[in-house]
């Protein structure tokens, strides 16, 4: 039994069937890529997993516990982190503060009023946050405004914010979208290194085959709301059904 199980999930928007009886089983410790042409339902699937959308039928189980119907912060507290297509960071705050917040969230839970202690006196929090910034290579800039960072650095920061929580599962929505080649490669390196060091299970939604083949252990191909093929990257490469899905989709 995998760490994340998607069971018979259906989701429609109006008359459009975005997810059609989706089943998925993610093995712990692997990097699982979900690819497919535009409109295949990848992002909907991701949003169902993190509680942003509620499926019409079916369930999503994380370590055997249902995720469906829970709010995003509850799902995060269970150990699921999310990386957005456009990096979502606290743009008004410094990098260090950006990382301190998720550290506090792990330690203190979803709500604690700690209005008297000082952030910078909590050595253990600060050390953890600085260590993680160090590991993604942003330690130098820790007192900068994060809003001024480059896109690639924002992505690093976002990954640091996820990693500092030591999640059991990270969901990445097109982590290299809109990035330059150099930033893309740097992000791939970072993700690969994270996999070596932390070994967190990851689900990556991706367009860029370069990213998929550099990182993924397993690949699921989706088309029109349904997974059509699943296998290792090499198995997928030669599969005629995959080419059909991409090219056929274009013709339709």
């Amino acid at each position, binding site marked *: 039994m995998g760490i994340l199980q998607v069971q018979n999930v259906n989701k429609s928007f109006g008359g459009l069937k975005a997810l059609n009886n989706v089943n998925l089983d993610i093995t712990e410790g692997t990097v699982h890529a979900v690819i497919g042409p535009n409109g295949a339902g990848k992002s909907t699937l991701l949003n169902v997993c993190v509680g942003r959308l509620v499926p019409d039928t079916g369930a999503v189980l994380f370590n055997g516990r249902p995720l469906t119907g829970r709010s995003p*912060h509850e799902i995060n507290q269970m150990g699921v982190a999310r990386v957005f297509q456009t990096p979502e960071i606290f*743009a008004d705050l410094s990098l260090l*503060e950006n990382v301190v917040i998720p550290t506090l969230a792990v330690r203190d839970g979803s709500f604690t009023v700690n209005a*008297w202690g000082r952030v*910078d006196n909590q*050595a253990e929090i600060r050390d953890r946050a600085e260590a993680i910034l160090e590991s993604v290579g942003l330690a130098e800039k820790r007192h900068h405004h994060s809003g001024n960072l480059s896109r690639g650095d924002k992505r690093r920061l976002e990954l640091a914010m996820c990693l500092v929580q030591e999640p059991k599962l990270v969901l990445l929505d097109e982590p290299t979208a809109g990035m330059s080649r150099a930033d893309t490669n740097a992000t791939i390196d970072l993700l690969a290194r994270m996999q070596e060091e932390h070994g967190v299970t990851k689900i990556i939604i991706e367009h860029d085959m370069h990213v998929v083949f550099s990182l993924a252990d397993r690949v699921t191909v989706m088309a029109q709301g349904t997974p059509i093929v699943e296998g290792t990257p090499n198995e997928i490469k030669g599969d005629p059904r995959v080419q059909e899905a991409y090219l056929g989709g274009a013709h339709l």
Partner: protein
Amino acid sequence: MTTPLATARSDLILFGAFTLAVLTMPIWLVPLGAGYPDLMQKFAIYGLFAIGFNILFGLTGYLSFGHAAFLGVGSYTAVWSFKLLGMNPVPALLLAILLSGLFAWVIGFVSLRRTGIYFSILTLAFAQMCYNLAYSVLTPITNGETGLRVLNSDPRALDHLTGQGVVDGPLVSNIFGLEMNGLPGFYFCAVWLLIGMYVSIRIFRSPFGLMLRAIKTNQTRLNYTGISTRPYALTAFVISGMYAGLAGALLCVTDPLAGAERMQWTASGEVVLMTILGGAGTLLGPVIGAGLIKYSENIFSAFHEQTLHDIFGFLPDGVEGVVVSVAGLFVGEGWHLTLGLLFMVIVIFLPGGLTSGVRQLVQMARRSSGGSGRSGGDAGTAPQAAE
């Protein structure tokens, strides 16, 4: 600057300087023509109101248009405490904080189900509801348009118990005989202002304050970081409601009369203006803003035609008449017009408030004076310097 100790020390210095400035107000305000106790009491009280409002608006970005309601609740509670318990201000203040906190919890619980402008409108609606009720059904509690005041025939249980029950002349709030008007009244308010400021500094630097700032910058990320934003915002709302209640009660300590006009939307708007004028989200900004608004209100509304004629007397007669009649629109009764214009000017040209304006000036000056090699460090130190 970056080590924990240094930051804590810089806050201590800030608070020390603030304390010194507040306590010496009766000295340094004299040359500015504002050295008399009634006005200084207002500075302290509205400063407190703005500090509290800033904890909500400055940190979380939730723009409440109904904070005057809590000011009113605090005032009525204080006067009732005078009436029933006695003229000692301490129970009055504590009860006011408690009750306004309760009110804020109820109103915040409902209003915070929405964000953005829905939230502003909901708080405005609640404040108007309180205001309407105070003028109509709740007249037995609020005494309607006349306003609520303490009478000699009121129970004032503690006063009678301590043998202070019978008083000649007007009833004035007092601590063991020390009357809370004039300079003692100011110092009493000043102590509360200092307490309020200290609490505000602690909140700003605390993990709780960090969460509130995170709410302002990105709620989505905060949710996906495992934080439930609503209880944080509600706590901030209640805290700022308590500050407002305390300020309302202090208004009654210095002058034991509570009227419903204190709850009107203009009063809510005024505290918003004080906060953004000084700089929302900064520690000192709101107090400075409150001081400036109350100072100009005092000056502008005191002006009348004769003073204007004196000022513009040097002008030729025809010109003087025109200038005086134009200027007359903005002073005295016309103070609200000036307030409205000030509001627009600040929002249009200086949305960050005076504090950010000053910071920009300093940076410009620093850059023009040959800019050193440490420009890279500026980005990091600027936000701390601002607070």
